[in-house]
């Protein structure tokens, strides 16, 4: 049942190269971006080689083929999430997806369920990536609404004891991450979704760290919006996804070609979703590449990938905690936990540790991981993060542990 990682790695050409004077590449930074299999690289290249034309326009064969390829990628994303194709919007990334929602809500006319007024509240959490914090801070600043948040407890979990005082009757939107990109914490959604819907608020889920790693069915989650980025899911950069079941009521964010129904010199009306949210010639080759990524993930199987990562995370957590002075920042049990593992090692600054690990061929992330309020709250200026994916294996954990021990000697 377990994954054949050796075979999987052969599909990812980057693992053929070495780094830092002939060292084998140990890539533990998939939380930042994942590596790409040949099928994705080829799908993106082949779009340009054989089918390139502007989608939804043009009366020629190439335009037809390009449109087919682009729309078929949309259908693949939809079935991957248990959604309908018309609920899927392609963006240039998850950051744009989140900004799209925040700006579109800001554009909503008064009376709309999305309209935000100074009397309203916007709720986030302390563990958000900057991409799911700042758009809401800015929306609050533009509308005069109040920004509130769930605190993070020292164990790296959300403090949901205050759910009724945080999500109040006047709350319009609750935006939170599915899995923390720093702590690895997976947030339980049922209570939050139920409370948000009870007060008429919509739930926006940042699923950048969950969609690539586990089976996701939007209907089961019960949220109203879900976003993820293609490049963290072995797809190309420059393509993200916005899923929503309530797009029809949402005004547009970006204006231009393709997103219109009718245009006069004085005014315009909008196309139905998803086109209303895809102004301009879209990122066709990248969407097609994302379709190929989803094909690849489906062939392996998301449940198998999830189980593989759970086993690997268990092993990493066990082995890392054997290192003296190493402290895991985030949950140390596997309950509601993904494969982003942050830690500190004694007094060694994460950048110095990261530099040492790099000299041994190990690629990790160091810093505040674009979640500065979270690292501040946890009282650590920065952490080192190892984040895992389908192509990682136990021996890489052993190499990491060994290199950390050597770094301790180096900086002693």
């Amino acid at each position, binding site marked *: 049942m377990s994954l054949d990682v050796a075979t999987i790695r052969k599909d990812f050409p980057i693992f053929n190269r070495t780094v*830092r*004077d002939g060292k084998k590449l140990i890539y533990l930074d998939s939380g930042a971006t994942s590596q790409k299999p040949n099928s994705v690289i080829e799908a993106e290249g082949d779009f340009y080689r054989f089918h390139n034309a502007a989608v939804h326009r043009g009366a020629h064969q190439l335009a037809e083929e390009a449109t087919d390829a682009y729309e078929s990628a949309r259908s693949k994303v939809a079935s991957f999430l248990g959604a309908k194709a018309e609920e899927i919007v392609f963006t240039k990334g998850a950051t744009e997806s989140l900004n799209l929602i925040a700006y579109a809500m800001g554009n909503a006319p008064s009376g709309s369920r999305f309209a935000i007024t100074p009397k309203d509240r916007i709720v986030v959490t302390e563990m958000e990536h900057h991409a799911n914090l700042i758009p809401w801070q800015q929306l609050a600043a533009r509308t005069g609404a109040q920004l509130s948040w769930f605190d993070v407890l020292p164990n790296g979990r959300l403090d949901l004891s205050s759910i009724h005082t945080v999500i109040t009757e006047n709350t319009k939107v609750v935006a939170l991450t599915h899995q923390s990109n720093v702590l690895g914490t997976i947030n339980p959604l049922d209570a939050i979704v139920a409370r948000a819907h009870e007060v008429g608020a919509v739930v926006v889920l940042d699923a950048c760290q969950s969609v690539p790693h586990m089976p996701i069915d939007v209907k089961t989650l019960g949220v109203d919006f879900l976003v993820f980025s293609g490049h963290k899911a072995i797809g190309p950069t420059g393509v993200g996804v916005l899923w929503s079941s309530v797009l029809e009521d949402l005004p547009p964010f970006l204006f231009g070609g393709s997103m219109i129904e009718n245009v006069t010199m004085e005014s315009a009306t909008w196309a139905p979703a998803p086109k209303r949210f895809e102004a301009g010639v879209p990122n066709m080759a990248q969407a097609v590449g994302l379709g190929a990524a989803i094909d690849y993930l489906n062939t392996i199987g998301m449940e198998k990938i999830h189980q593989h990562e759970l086993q690997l995370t268990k092993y990493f957590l066990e082995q890392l905690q054997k290192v003296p002075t190493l402290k895991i920042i985030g949950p140390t049990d596997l309950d509601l936990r993904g494969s982003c593992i942050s830690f500190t090692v004694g007094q060694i*600054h*994460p*950048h*110095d540790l990261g*530099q*040492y690990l790099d*000299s041994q061929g190990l690629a990790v992330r*160091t*810093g*505040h991981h674009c979640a*500065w309020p979270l*690292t501040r709250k946890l009282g650590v*200026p*920065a952490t080192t993060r190892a984040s895992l994916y389908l192509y990682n294996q136990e021996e890489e954990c052993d190499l990491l542990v060994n290199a950390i021990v050597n770094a301790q000697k*180096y*900086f002693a």
Partner: protein
Amino acid sequence: MELDSLYQEVILDHYKHPLNKGLSEKYGVQVHHINPSCGDEITLNLSIEAGIVKSITWDGVGCSISQASVSIVSDLLINKTLEQAGSITDVFVELMHSKGMKEGDPTILEDAVALAGVSKFPARIKCALLGWMAFKDAAVRIKQLKESENRGSN
């Protein structure tokens, strides 16, 4: 190994035993600089007398490169005129952008030549520059402050 050109003994020394760390109670100006990509932060106090740097004290959190570099700055630029300190800073900035092609002049940069290896690691150049940029900012502000004081007293 390549790493040793980055982590020279003198750098690790400054990191473990930083000079002038701990903010002075009195100062001419105080600046706070952040490295937004990694979260390193320093606060730097600068005092001058008759255009000469009399005291640089600082406090901060960050990696060995950023902390050693500000320690070096706080020692090297003492008793220099603001003009001299400015040109030493320029020499250091040029060294950092040399991509490992320059060794640095020890008669000008003293301990700071140990940071020459940083220029081979593009991601770390901003770490080494944090303290220097804080000083540069403080120098500009203290000059403006003195000029406005002079105008006020005329």
